[in-house]
């Protein structure tokens, strides 16, 4: 066989055909000599054409580009039939050294295990045909404890036999074992990897640099799944799906399975995790009723199952259902100080709590109790016999009873009459009387909690030093007391005692659930302690309720083990040497491996799940392989033959050649320009943005400008004047408010900013303490939207000073044009009844004491809201409509702005010079007008405060009395 010609990643299977390329120049010459045949055209005018010498003497030859096209097509054809192959698969028939087949057979190989096995089989079969020895190495095999892995090639047929027995393992591959192994000389390494990074991966890859090697990897690595630790939201199971490559968006369905004892697991809920493009994690949530969630035994990805894509749930994931029974005396007045409230709040993130009373809970022999994992009795001192029996039976079946001390418990313990039976639901006998520490009558100080010792379920928690116990109920000293104590005070007296009863347990806290006895309920420790208790509620172990770390050498037995495909199996049925107990320390590492495969481990009834995807882990793609390693996808076409592509190209070129020939001989005319133009136009239309965009932006920018203005006004507290459209009048209004602001700054603590012109149709009104609105005869009624805004402004405490500036001078008693206009404006406004302003009104006293309220004119009345009577005011206040009696409008015709108007002084000092002369009354009246303006501003800012001040002497007098 003629060996294939290999050029890097390109190889020719029929290289001898390439010799035909040498014939191309001949083809060139031949083609060049034969021009295309001319087109025959009947044309009578040929008679006069005879003898015409062609002006352009084009050689009767094929144009060079046409020639190049044909030569290229011919070259492509030759290349195509030489069978080029991209990324050629190395032929095992070449070379004679041993073939080392290395397989990642960890959990990540499980989803496409058959494809891997097929690929391995093919390689071994090739090796067998080539007569090369082969070695098969599964990387997930437990590594040797000492020494180095010995690679000893055997006959390929033996390796084939081994392959059939190879199964993926539910833990990660150990590449580090091979990274240090000696490869036989002249060996060809084939690594069927899972595409995931892991310990030793980089080292092993580096070792491949020197040898003939290729790596087969999946197009898509295995996905991981992690169940997040239970959060605070009830009824939700939070999950995180993981992937190694940050590729495009991807959606994975996750199934939640329940695993009944005697039946196959069945899915009970599902969720969907959406990887965003470029993300390696995707979160998902399963939201379901609590009892359904509590049945979920494990979760797995729907497709591409593996041990990493499955998560076993242990008791920590099950939210406990807790019944809260309160024996406290009803504290209707202070529900927030009740123990029940503290417990509810503390348990909210941990469990589902339900308030029940003892009688309903225990009726019908405690049928209602079965729904709960734990029952908390807050200060229940006495039980009916049936209640006690039901509770006791429930506890013996596995329930956890948590009790808190309190007055009632105390009373029961204090009973010395002997008529009552001792409380049967306590882990210890109680001493009568409570112990009070740090009170006025005691010597002792309030005691802190002693550090939890290692046998305590609370081990690992740190009692804060500021948690002090001032009162407690003491346990009767007893020989069996010490093992029952979970927590004690610094002086050794027990704080939490517990007793195992049957499958369940009784826990007693010697303090009350509310903070009157201790500050424990106020601390975070309270919650953590409750959590620890509840964690063991379903699998309580009174003797060894310790955390994993507390007893590192204790052995935990696997109950359920995951196989590599993420299916849980009972450990005794797994029939695997891996089903060996693991120490607590090993489990605490949270790193499943061959000595602690992923599964559920139990010890004395407590359970813990060990999952591959521990919190904080992430998947990473395999590091880059050395350049000499040929990478191939697993399963798919390993080689890419280029023949079809080249043939297609050659055919396309030949077609182009046909067209070009037609064009050259004039048999084909280019389409008219119009067509091209139309195409360009269509393209332009397609590319141009929609016409609506630019226009729709305009109103928004306007709003933004108005908003910016309003923001400025709000920050500076400036007055507003309503723009009338008459620029002269608007200028007077502006100058008037400017002058008023100058006087306010000089005389009061109000320092307004420069006045703002306001368009009631558009601008935000609410930022102005009051609006000055000069009314002209031509004033148009505001639009209904503006009226609505004005009404809202007035209702929210705004104030408008309407000024008709005509002193109400009218003939024949008819209203003036300004008054007519004001009526139009006020038509839709929500105005109160008005009354003439007199000197008893607050406006006359809010800063200066005034008797009259002139502007430039002094005629007509000034109107303000009529003083409401007390009953009306009360009603309004009750309804929340009251403006505290502050008039929303001041109506007059005295041209106040004209009197206030100032232009900035020339030297920059002082308030400035008046703009308009006072027609009568002179500067003295202007001063009064300014004082009225100051009063208006004060009134706008302080409302009726001054009117309340009026009553102060009387109030003081009353108080003195």
């Amino acid at each position, binding site marked *: 066989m003629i060996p294939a010609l290999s050029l890097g990643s390109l190889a020719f299977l029929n290289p001898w055909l390439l010799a035909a390329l040498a014939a191309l120049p001949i083809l060139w010459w031949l083609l060049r000599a034969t021009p295309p045949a*001319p087109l025959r*055209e009947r044309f009578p005018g040929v*008679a006069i054409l005879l003898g*015409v010498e062609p002006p352009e003497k084009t050689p009767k030859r094929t144009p060079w580009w046409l020639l190049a096209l044909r030569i290229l097509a011919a070259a492509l054809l030759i290349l195509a039939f030489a069978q080029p192959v991209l990324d050629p698969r190395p032929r095992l028939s070449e070379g004679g050294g041993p073939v080392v087949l290395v397989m990642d057979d960890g959990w990540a190989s499980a989803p496409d295990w058959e494809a891997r096995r097929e690929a391995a089989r093919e390689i071994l079969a090739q090796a067998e045909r080539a007569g090369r020895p082969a070695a098969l190495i599964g990387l997930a095999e437990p590594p040797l404890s000492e020494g180095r892995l010995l690679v000893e090639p055997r006959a390929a047929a033996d390796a084939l036999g081994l392959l059939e027995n190879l199964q993926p393992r539910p833990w990660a591959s150990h590449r580090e074992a091979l990274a240090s192994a000696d490869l036989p000389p002249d060996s060809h390494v084939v690594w069927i990897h899972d595409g995931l990074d892991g310990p030793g991966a980089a080292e092993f890859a580096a070792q491949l640099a020197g040898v003939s090697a290729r790596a087969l990897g999946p197009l898509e690595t295995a996905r991981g799944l992690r169940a997040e630790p239970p959060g605070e939201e009830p009824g939700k199971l939070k999950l995180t799906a993981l992937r190694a490559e940050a590729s495009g968006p991807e959606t994975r369905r996750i199934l939640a399975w329940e695993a009944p004892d005697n039946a196959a697991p069945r899915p009970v809920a599902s969720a969907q995790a959406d990887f965003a493009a470029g993300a390696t994690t995707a979160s998902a949530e399963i939201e379901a009723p609590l009892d359904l969630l509590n049945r979920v035994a494990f979760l797995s990805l729907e497709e591409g199952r593996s041990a990493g894509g499955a998560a076993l749930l242990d008791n920590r994931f099950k939210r406990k259902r807790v019944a809260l029974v309160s024996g406290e005396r009803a504290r209707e007045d202070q529900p927030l100080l009740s123990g029940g409230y503290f417990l509810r709040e503390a348990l909210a993130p941990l469990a589902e709590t339900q308030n029940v009373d003892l009688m309903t809970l225990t009726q019908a022999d405690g049928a209602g109790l079965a729904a709960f994992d734990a029952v908390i009795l807050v200060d229940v001192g006495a039980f009916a016999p049936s209640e006690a029996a039901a509770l006791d039976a429930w506890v013996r079946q596995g329930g956890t009873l948590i009790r808190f001390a309190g007055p009632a418990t105390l009373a029961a313990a204090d009973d010395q009459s002997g008529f009552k039976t001792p409380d049967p639901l306590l882990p210890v006998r109680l001493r009568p009387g409570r112990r009070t520490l740090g009170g006025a009558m005691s010597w002792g100080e309030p005691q802190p909690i002693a550090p939890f010792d290692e046998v305590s379920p609370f081990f690992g928690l740190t009692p804060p030093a500021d948690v002090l116990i001032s009162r407690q109920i003491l346990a009767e000293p007893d020989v069996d007391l010490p093992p029952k104590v979970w927590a004690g005070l610094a002086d050794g007296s027990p704080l939490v005692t517990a007793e195992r009863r049957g499958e369940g347990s009784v826990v007693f806290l010697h303090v009350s659930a509310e903070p009157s006895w201790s500050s424990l309920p106020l601390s975070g420790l309270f919650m953590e302690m409750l959590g620890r208790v509840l964690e063991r509620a379903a699998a309580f172990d009174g003797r060894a309720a310790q955390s994993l770390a507390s007893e590192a050498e204790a052995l935990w037995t696997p109950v359920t083990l995951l196989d590599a495909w993420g299916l849980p199996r009972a450990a005794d049925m797994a029939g695997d040497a891996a089903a060996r107990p693991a120490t607590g320390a090993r489990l605490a590492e949270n790193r499943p491996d061959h000595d602690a495969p992923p599964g559920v481990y139990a010890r004395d009834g407590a359970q813990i799940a060990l999952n591959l995807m521990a919190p904080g882990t992430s998947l990473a793609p395999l590091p880059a392989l050395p350049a000499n390693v040929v990478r191939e996808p697993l399963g798919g076409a390993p080689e890419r033959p280029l023949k079809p592509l080249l043939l297609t190209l050659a055919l396309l070129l030949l077609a182009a050649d046909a067209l070009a020939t037609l064009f050259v001989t004039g048999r084909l005319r280019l389409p008219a320009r119009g067509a091209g133009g139309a195409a360009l136009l269509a393209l332009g239309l397609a590319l141009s943005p929609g016409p609506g965009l630019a226009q729709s932006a305009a109103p928004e920018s306007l709003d933004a400008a108005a908003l910016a203005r309003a923001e400025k006004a709000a920050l500076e507290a400036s007055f507003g004047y309503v723009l009338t459209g008459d620029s002269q009048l608007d200028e007077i209004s502006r100058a008037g408010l400017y002058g008023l602001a100058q006087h306010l700054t000089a005389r009061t603590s109000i320092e307004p900013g420069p006045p703002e012109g306001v368009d009631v149709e558009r601008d935000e009104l609410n930022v102005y303490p009051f609006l000055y609105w000069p009314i002209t005869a031509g004033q148009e009624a505001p639009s209904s939207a503006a009226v609505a805004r004005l009404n809202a402004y007035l209702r929210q405490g705004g104030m408008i000073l309407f000024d008709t500036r005509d002193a109400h001078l009218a003939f024949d008693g008819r209203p003036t044009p300004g008054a007519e206009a004001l009526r139009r404006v006020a038509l839709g406004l929500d105005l109160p009844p008005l009354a003439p302003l007199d000197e008893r009104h607050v406006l006359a006293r809010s800063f200066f004491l005034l008797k009259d309220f002139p502007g430039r004119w002094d005629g007509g009345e000034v109107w303000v809201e009529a003083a409401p009577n007390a009953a009306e005011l009360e009603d309004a206040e009750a309804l929340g409509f009251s403006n505290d009696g502050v008039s929303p409008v001041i109506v007059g015709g005295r041209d106040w702005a004209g009197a206030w108007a100032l232009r900035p002084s020339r030297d920059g000092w002082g308030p400035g010079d008046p703009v308009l002369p006072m027609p009568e009354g002179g500067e003295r009246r202007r001063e009064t007008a300014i004082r009225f303006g100051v009063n208006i501003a004060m009134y706008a800012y302080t409302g009726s405060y001054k009117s309340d001040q009026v009553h102060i002497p009387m109030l003081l007098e009353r108080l003195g009395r």
Partner: protein
Amino acid sequence: MSEPRRPEAASAVPPGAQAARLRRDAEGAASALPPLLLAAERLASLVTGAHGRRRSGRGETFWQYRRALPGDALSDMDWRRSARADELYVRETEWEAAQTLWLWPDRSAAMRFRSKTAPATKAERAALLALALAALAARSGERFALLDPPLPPTSREPGLRRLALALAATDQETPPDYGAPPAAPLGRRARVVLFSDFFGPLEPLARRLASAAAQEAGGALVQILDPAEEAFPYRGRLLFESMGGLLNYEADRAESLDAAYRGRLAERRARLEDLARGAGWRLFLHRTDQSPAPLLLALHGALSAASHSWSAPR
């Protein structure tokens, strides 16, 4: 030669079949005829009475008697008139001899060319114009004749029909590539209109014109061209062939020949112009995509003017 064949044909073919063939041919000819005739007459009707007669009077033969002058031949005497008077009278027959309109629509293969944009072949257009001129002549009582196929001078409506039939008759044998007007005894002061593309050799034409001039025959040359023959819209590599395929010319880039062709065409037209002027004729240019009516008007005007000048006694 054909006489002996006829009975054979009759014996070989049943009489009914022969009649049917005759009728079919006749119908074929007739079916082509009416549209052509109609079109020609419609065209001719556009020319209204522009042919002015110099005098009113009946007949073409008699114009006037005049007194015999010395030198008049005896045979010219009108003895009957002379017998009624003392003097001898001569019967003038001048009018009768003139004004036969000879038409020659070129029927060569080149005339059958028609490009894509043209509405008709050149031959069709030539036939139409010839027939229309004949119709005009017939209306004004003049005589007309065809040079090829030969049709003796005739007049009136029946003659027009015969002319139309002759023009519509399709030739069985392949015509020559380019035509030339045949020699014919035109008679003095005849008027001749030659319709052709004049792409053929010009020597025969020059000879005919010379002889026509010698016979004092006036007339016009109408060069009918296809639009393609004037615009030369050809591109690319082409092998131009004459209609019969006798002539060919290979062009590598036809578009580059544009200017040369136009120059040649203009040159030929100048040559035709010279020839026409030399014989006292006029040259008209016509393109098949143009309306024939203006040309007809111009032709008619030119012929009328010619008849004026020629009919005036010298």
